[in-house]
């Protein structure tokens, strides 16, 4: 491993040749066991104010056989141990706050700190979803104001902010399409999905009770309209298109596509996960979209938090408004806000309460910060993607050549010749101080490198990324081994995912201690000396 280390270490030194690792070095990092391995009877991390009423006897109150005793193996640790445990763990993560996170399709942009601040205000974080509308005017106003902003940005007519993720937005949107078609006599059977679509699209279609029919893209990565004409039969309910597509290219014939569907009584659903390429520039409502969802945790900067939470508002055209999920926030004549749950044609609820209010609130804070200037963010995002494309185009294969919007998708075909694939290149990027791009998606590009810098990256960071990608391309030829065995700079090397899936260990068990590979302090508690 040292020879490789030398490679990754060396670049931190002065006078290095161009294309070596400039952005990252290595630094001492704390080991840490699992919290359960730090537990000892009697330690406490949180104490409660004394009980100010008579204590009751649980067995008497519930009946002996309804009472449980202490939870075996449950942690017993002190406050400082919890602080250290999670602080140490956190240092093993990469994050937007540390550098570029160019995951294609994920729009990892800066998460403004003020949004975290306002989300925690007393009077917002503290509000109970079951309290009366009269006591919730502030919350309802926030939901209403955000809805107005999103309608302006998308050019649609009505919206629900209840779905808590893009996938749930897809489901809600499809159910509205179904309800609409049903109301016109026939729900139809199929939903068309391009082969470049995200996995949640087909998965949502099934829950909405439709069959998935994949339609292929043409050699330019665009929807093949002839092909579409042929597939868009009478039993097709809708086409789910991602625009810009997951190739990062705009569907130039989107309006014609909408026409084809509408002629046949089908609707056009747009997956708006890539709205970061359009906000302030073009409105889906203008180019024929009937239903779409937004990912507030992408375009509108709410933090991903290691996988969630999100919010997936659905925007619709007038014809679909009657079918919105309940409740709907309405403004009464006296200017006050209310929740309308009495909507007979609604598809029903997709989630309890009003959705991820805390996420909606952050998205509104983000939009208010930009106002109409949100266009500038979009321009910078597209500029960054094109700058990176231009910077590495001669080093990587670009299967689809149409103009890039907010992201660009390369293929590893040139590196494959040296036995280096997209995953290897991605892992090697870690040594260069970057989070990898999205690998192996979209499926229509074999060995895809899907790169989305977002507007949050400076020219400096883009230049470093370009240099890193070029250097790795060079390594793939001169020293493929170092790429194939990357990363070399992390506290653990590539982990065996196959073994993990073959014999899944999905939880800690006391016995695990003994067979823990990495020594942790527990091994020591016996004391340092024999």
């Amino acid at each position, binding site marked *: 491993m040292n020879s490789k280390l030398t490679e990754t270490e060396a670049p931190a030194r002065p006078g290095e040749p161009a294309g070596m690792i400039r952005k990252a070095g290595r630094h001492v990092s704390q080991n840490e066991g699992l919290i359960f391995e730090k537990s000892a009877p009697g330690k406490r991390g*949180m104490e409660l104010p004394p009980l100010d009423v008579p204590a009751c006897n649980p067995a008497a109150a519930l009946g002996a*056989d309804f009472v449980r005793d202490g939870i075996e193996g449950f942690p017993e640790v002190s406050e400082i141990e919890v602080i250290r445990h999670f602080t140490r763990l956190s240092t093993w993560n990469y994050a937007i706050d540390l550098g570029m996170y160019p995951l294609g399709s994920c729009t990892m942009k800066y998460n403004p700190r003020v949004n975290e601040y306002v989300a925690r205000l007393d009077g917002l974080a503290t509000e109970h979803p079951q309290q009366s509308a009269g006591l919730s005017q502030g*919350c309802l106003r926030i939901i209403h104001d955000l809805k107005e902003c999103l309608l*302006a940005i998308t050019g649609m007519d009505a919206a629900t902010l209840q779905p808590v993720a893009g996938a749930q937005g897809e489901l809600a949107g499809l159910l509205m399409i179904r309800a609409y078609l049903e109301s016109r006599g026939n729900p139809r059977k199929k939903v068309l999905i391009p082969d470049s679509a995200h996995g949640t699209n087909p998965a949502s279609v099934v829950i909405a009770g439709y069959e998935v029919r994949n339609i292929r893209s043409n050699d330019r990565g665009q929807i093949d309209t002839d092909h579409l004409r042929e597939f868009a039969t009478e039993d097709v309910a809708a086409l789910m298109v991602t625009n810009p597509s997951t190739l990062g290219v705009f569907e130039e014939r989107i309006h014609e596509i909408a026409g084809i569907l509408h002629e046949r009584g089908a609707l056009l659903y747009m997956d708006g996960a890539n709205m970061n390429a359009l906000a302030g520039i073009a409105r889906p409502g203008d180019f024929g979209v009937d239903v779409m969802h937004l990912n507030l945790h992408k375009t509108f900067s709410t933090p991903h938090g290691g996988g969630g939470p999100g919010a997936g508002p659905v925007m619709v055209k007038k014809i679909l408004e009657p079918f919105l999920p309940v409740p709907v926030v309405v403004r009464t004549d006296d200017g006050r806000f209310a929740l309308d749950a009495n909507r007979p044609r609604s598809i029903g*609820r997709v989630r309890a309460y009003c959705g991820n209010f805390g996420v909606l609130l952050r998205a509104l804070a983000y939009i208010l910060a930009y106002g109409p200037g*949100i266009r500038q963010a979009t*321009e910078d995002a597209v500029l960054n993607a094109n700058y990176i494309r*231009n910077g590495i185009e001669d080093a990587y294969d670009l299967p689809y050549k149409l103009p890039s919007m907010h992201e660009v998708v390369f293929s590893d075909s040139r590196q494959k010749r040296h036995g280096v694939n997209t995953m290897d290149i991605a892992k090697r990027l870690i040594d260069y101080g970057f989070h*990898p791009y999205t690998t192996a998606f979209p499926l229509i590009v074999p060995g895809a490198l899907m790169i989305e810098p977002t507007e949050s990256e400076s020219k400096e960071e883009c230049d470093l990324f370009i240099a890193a990608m070029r250097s790795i391309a060079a390594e793939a030829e001169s020293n493929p081994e170092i790429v194939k065995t990357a990363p070399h700079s992390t506290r653990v090397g590539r*982990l065996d995912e196959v073994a993990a899936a073959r014999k899944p260990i999905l939880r800690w068990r006391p016995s695990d201690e003994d067979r823990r590979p990495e020594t942790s302090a527990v091994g020591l508690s016996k004391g340092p000396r024999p």
Partner: protein
Amino acid sequence: MRYLPKSPAEREQMLQAVGARSVDELFRSIPETFRLRAPLPLPGPLSEAEIIQYFQARAAENSRGFVSFLGAGVYSHLRSVVTDSLVQRGEFLTSYTPYQAEISQGTLTAIFEFQTLMCQLTAQEVANASMYDGSTALTEAALMANRITGKSRVLVARSVHPEYREVLRTYAKHTGIEVEEIAYQPSGELDRAALNQTRLSGAAALIVQSPNFFGVLEDVPALAEAAHASGALLVAGIAEPVSLGIVRPPAEADIVAIEGQAFGVPPSYGGPYVGVIATREKFVRQMPGRLAGQSADDQGRRGFVLTLATREQHIRREKATSNICTNEALYALVTTIHLCLLGKEGLREMALQNLSKARFALAELEKIPGVRRAFSGRFFNEFALEFPRSVKLINAALLREKIAGPFVLGRHYPELTKRGLVCVTETMPRAEIERFANALRRILETPL
């Protein structure tokens, strides 16, 4: 603009580098007709200070200054500032789903701990990395039962959270799942009589909640036995998991669907919260959602990875066990930190305080003429009361006392307009309980 790290000159340089004369050129693939000329009619731009002003103004329009006895699925419990200061570390807050394990070990290790804690709490064998919330977790549990048993009818107790049942119906409707409801009995528990074999046989699952929406504990072992007797699974929903600190875990259930909000997550007007599904090892491949598993690198160093992904939409697409992708990871972390702080003793003590305060409150309220307990079943920190007049009227009067009164059961149970749900957790000072009782007495003494 403060969020954008570019100077005008840098933009120019970059445009030149890509060979574009103007930024508009970058959008040439969008048909001219669809390109906006006018700026969007949006409020702003606002400085940070103005954003804070806007939200402080909104906060002042809510329930500040009111004391609330609402539970009904969302519970106010003590939270430590430690939790919040840790989850706000950028390394946790601003990272993505840990697909790249080598630089996501922080998140992955925490998820593994979360899964373990959820198993310990529920006495189940495996738990996932989180679902959206309790309502969708319960719903996905039903779909999961359907996949496991191949049967399409599910029985759900009417005493399950009404909004959870609404979500279940929405998801069930077009997946060919038939939802049948089972009545409750005077004790507030599920009506075992209504649960005859004929209804059970051929059912994929019996779905209950404990404590249920009335705050009453269900007899999970007995219900499991009944369900299993006719080949159905028992799905147990838990909306108030603090109860697990003192109440027997649903070990006999086949699938447990949890709403984790009570473990350190603020009410935040309905979300984000954190759902979880826990179940038996043998059902793991039918589980929705992400799973973290233990592995090792080529030098045998322990590490964690996302595993069994072949269940998920990004691999299986229309054949996936669910369409869920983004989940509630950050709140799973909140829950994990909160439970580590609380620990074995702390969780038990918190549960005991809830048990005690709820009983103290019930005793105080039952002293009021005309007020009596509505259901006789066992309860944890929430109970229903029967009032001499409609709860709506009573609440209107309580508002004047700065009290957000009982949850109006009539909202979802037409037959219960005079019944209201009262929740009392460890955060409710005795003095406020007494103030509530006195206010209620006064209100009921004044004739309509």
